[in-house]
């Protein structure tokens, strides 16, 4: 097979670029331990409201400076819809859905996760600066999807 010398060069550079990208990917996952949302447990979606901790959603200070947000994403609201925490807190979100698929994106953070009925989504983030973040449902969940939002208020 004849391959033009320019084509060879182009494909080599392209292939090299890809290897660099793959190397970065391997470093991120295997080296730096940056992981995407993993399995964090399953739950019976019909029993969300009676299964701890989702029987009592809310924001809790589990230890000094450490918060847990137990959240139920349902059509068409987040429960709780307002999360108040002091700046510098490490917050773990534990979210599930009792009805359809939702998504949660806390604006200007890396909290961006799907909420699938039957699964528990877990995300950790440290809010450093005092400001307000929108919480947006970013997966279509029915006619009122665009009314589904909330706020994280970092004080």
């Amino acid at each position: 097979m004849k391959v033009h010398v320019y084509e060879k060069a182009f494909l080599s550079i392209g292939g090299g670029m890809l290897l660099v990208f793959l190397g970065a990917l391997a470093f991120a996952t295997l080296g730096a331990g940056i992981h995407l949302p993993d399995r964090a447990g399953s739950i019976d979606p019909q029993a969300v409201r009676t299964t701890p901790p989702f029987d009592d959603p809310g924001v809790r200070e589990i230890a000094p400076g450490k918060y847990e947000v137990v959240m139920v994403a349902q059509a068409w609201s987040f429960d709780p819809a307002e999360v108040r925490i002091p700046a510098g807190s490490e917050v773990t979100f534990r979210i599930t859905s009792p009805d359809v698929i939702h998504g949660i994106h806390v604006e200007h953070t890396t909290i961006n996760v799907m909420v699938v009925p039957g699964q528990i989504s877990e995300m950790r983030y440290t809010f450093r600066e005092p400001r307000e973040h929108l919480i947006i449902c970013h997966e279509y969940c029915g006619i009122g999807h665009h009314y589904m939002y909330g706020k994280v208020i970092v004080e």
Partner: protein
Amino acid sequence: MKRKVLTGSLLAMGALLVGVSFFAIAQPLTVLPRMALAPGFVLTDQHGERLTNEDLRGKLVVYTLAYTGCGEACAPINRTMAELAARLDEVDTGGAPVRLVTISVDPERDTPAALRSAAEGLGADGQVWRLASGDPAMVRQVVGGGFEVFYEARDDGTIRFDPAFVVVDGWGITRARNRVGLPDVELLLDQLRLLGNEVRASTGVARFAYEAAHLFSCYAY
């Protein structure tokens, strides 16, 4: 000749690649993830003796939460622990002893004496299964900060908390947090068995296989 060397090295590398991929994807052995460092603590057990996380180093520990004034609400948790204690000899942990620790989420009222009478009711021997309590701030730090479980006193004097069974290995690393609903004893025994496998394989070449299982997140649950 040259081609033979080339083909040979190609095949060898291919085989290596296939081997590694096979391991990563087929996951011939699974482990429990190393989730976080388990909390350090100083608590007091039902005999008034000091219980620290260092005392439990080298042992597999199942922690759970309860309190003595809990009544029926804690009964399923205590039953699970009692059954677990009775069935520990079913799993081969590779010589690593297993300890069960019930931490009181009502440290103000659960004095060693209160714990002792509760332990007698439960059949906790104080050796394998210990009940522990301590400084309220310390308990908050261990349960909330370490095991990430929230609890608070209700107005009626009862304590609201989420049931949790946390499994910690001999290096003091949290390996499982069973915190949605009540786990059954089989699940806990299986988790101990997985840790036991790892303990048995902690020497020799097998250790690398287990390290690889961690590296490729071959997680059992």
